[in-house]
C-alpha cells in the first residue's frame, strides 16, 4: 500500500504539495515513485524560472519509463533539490522528505488541490 500523508495536498498527476504561507513545497507521491520504479534522472527547472499550474516543469525518468512533472501551483521557483542530481533514488526512498523536488513562491491564490482522502480515492479508481 502506498503512503499518503494527511497533512499534504495532491494533484491527479501524482504530485504532492505542502503549503507554507506563500511557499509551496512540491514532490511526487509514494504511489507515483512506486509506479515509476527505480528513478535514475530528475530534470528540474532552475531557481528563478516561472512555473504555471497545470504546465510541465520537468521530467522524472526511471529505468523503464519517463514521465512529465506537472506544476500544482503558479509562481517562481525559489529553491530546487540539487541532491537529486547525484541521488535521484531519494525520490524512491523518501518521496515526501529527502525526495522533495522544488519550492515555488506562489504568485496566485492556491488552486484547488486534492485532499489525502481524495487522492487515495483517485489512485484506487
Amino acid at each position: 500500500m502506498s503512503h499518503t500523508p494527511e497533512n499534504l495536498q495532491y494533484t491527479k498527476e501524482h504530485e504532492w504539495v505542502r503549503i507554507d504561507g506563500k511557499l509551496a513545497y512540491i514532490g511526487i507521491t509514494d504511489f507515483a515513485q512506486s509506479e515509476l520504479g527505480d528513478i535514475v534522472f530528475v530534470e528540474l527547472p532552475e531557481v528563478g524560472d516561472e512555473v504555471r499550474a497545470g504546465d510541465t516543469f520537468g521530467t522524472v525518468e526511471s529505468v523503464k519509463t519517463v514521465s512529465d512533472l506537472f506544476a500544482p501551483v503558479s509562481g517562481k521557483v525559489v529553491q530546487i533539490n540539487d541532491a537529486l542530481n547525484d541521488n535521484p533514488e531519494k525520490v524512491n526512498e523518501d518521496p515526501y522528505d529527502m525526495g522533495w523536488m522544488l519550492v515555488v513562491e506562489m504568485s496566485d491564490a492556491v488552486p484547488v488541490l486534492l485532499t489525502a482522502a481524495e487522492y487515495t480515492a483517485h489512485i484506487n479508481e
Partner: protein
Amino acid sequence: MADDQLRRTPLYPLYEVWGGKTIDFGGWELPVQYSGILAEHLAVRTKVGLFDVSHMGEIEVSGPSALQCLQQIVTNNVARLEIGQALYSPFCQEDGGTIDDVLIYRLENERYLVVVNASNIEKDFAWFLDHAQGAQVVNQSAQTVQLALQGPEALSVLQALTAEDVSQIAYYTFRNNILVAGVSCLVSRTGYTGEDGFELYTDSVNGPALFSAILEAGKEHGIMPIGLGARDTLRLEARLPLYGHELTNEITPLEAGLSMFVKFDKGPFIGREALLQQKEKGLARKIVGFELTGRGIARAGFEVWVDGRLVGHVTSGTMGPSLQKSIGLALLSTEVAEVGRAIEVDVRGKKVAGVIVKTPFYKRPAR
C-alpha cells in the same frame, strides 16, 4: 491481437506472492519487476536470480527430414549440432530480413526443439509448417514452462536440487529428463543475461512447484525472482539482441552484427542470396553500441545525429545498472559506425552527447 484478453503463464498466481508488478508485454501479462529493477539486476550479476520465461515458444521438429527442414530455414549450421548440444541462430525471409532468432536443441537423432520469441510464436509456427519438407512440426508452447536461473550462484542453487552433476553441463549443452526438485526437466547451460546460468524446461503442470522449490533452495544464496525490466537491462549490458529492436523483418542478421551465426558455406537456406549480396556489397548500416555522456536515457526510436546529419536511430537504450552509465544500441550508417565517434541522441527534443563504444558493455569477470 484480436481479443484483448492477456495471456498468462502457469506461474501467474505466484507473481503476486513474490510482489511482482505485471504489465502487458506483447499480449502477455508478465511481471516487469518484483523488488525493483536495479536490485534484481544486481542480484543476477552478483548472486542469482530466477525468471519465468514461459511466454517463450517451443516448436518441436522431428522425423527423417527434420535436419533438412531446419537447415533450409535457419542461417546457422544445424548439421554440426550433436545430441545434447544447443545452437543459436537467426532465420530470415528471402530478402534477408529477420523473422526471429531462436535456440535449437538436438534432443535425439531426428528430433529438435526450437525455442522462439513469445511475440513470434504463431508467425514462426506457420513458417515452419510452410517449410516443413515432410518433417513433423508441433507447437508445444502451451504445454511448456521455461525458467531461467542466472547468476554466479546459479550452479550452486541448481546442484542443491538434483542428483545429477550439473557442473558437467558445459556452455551451450544440455541434459534432458533429469530430475530437479523431483520434476523432470530439460536443463541447458544457456541464458540471456551475460552471466553463467541455466534454462530449465518442463511440463506446464510442474511449473509452479519447480519455481517455488528453486526460490526456496536459493534463499541462502540471496536469490530473487526477476522481472522483465531487469531481463532487458541485463541482456542489453551483455549486448544480446532483442527481437523487435535489434532484429526485425527489416534488419538482417549481418546488420545486427550476427555474421558468425550466418554460415554461407553450409548449403542453401532461405535468405542466403540476399545476405550474400549484402555481404559482398558491404553493409550500408549496422548496429553499434554507444554511451551517453550527457544526462538522459536514449529510448528505442530516438534519432541519432552526427555533425548535424541524421544517421540512424536507437534500437534499445537503458541505464546500465552494473555500469552506472546510460547505454544503448543504435542502427547507424556504416560510414559513421566506428568506435570513438561522437554522436548526439535526440532525447525528446534535446540533443544529448554520446560516443560509440566497444561492446559488450559488460563482460562477466573470470571467477
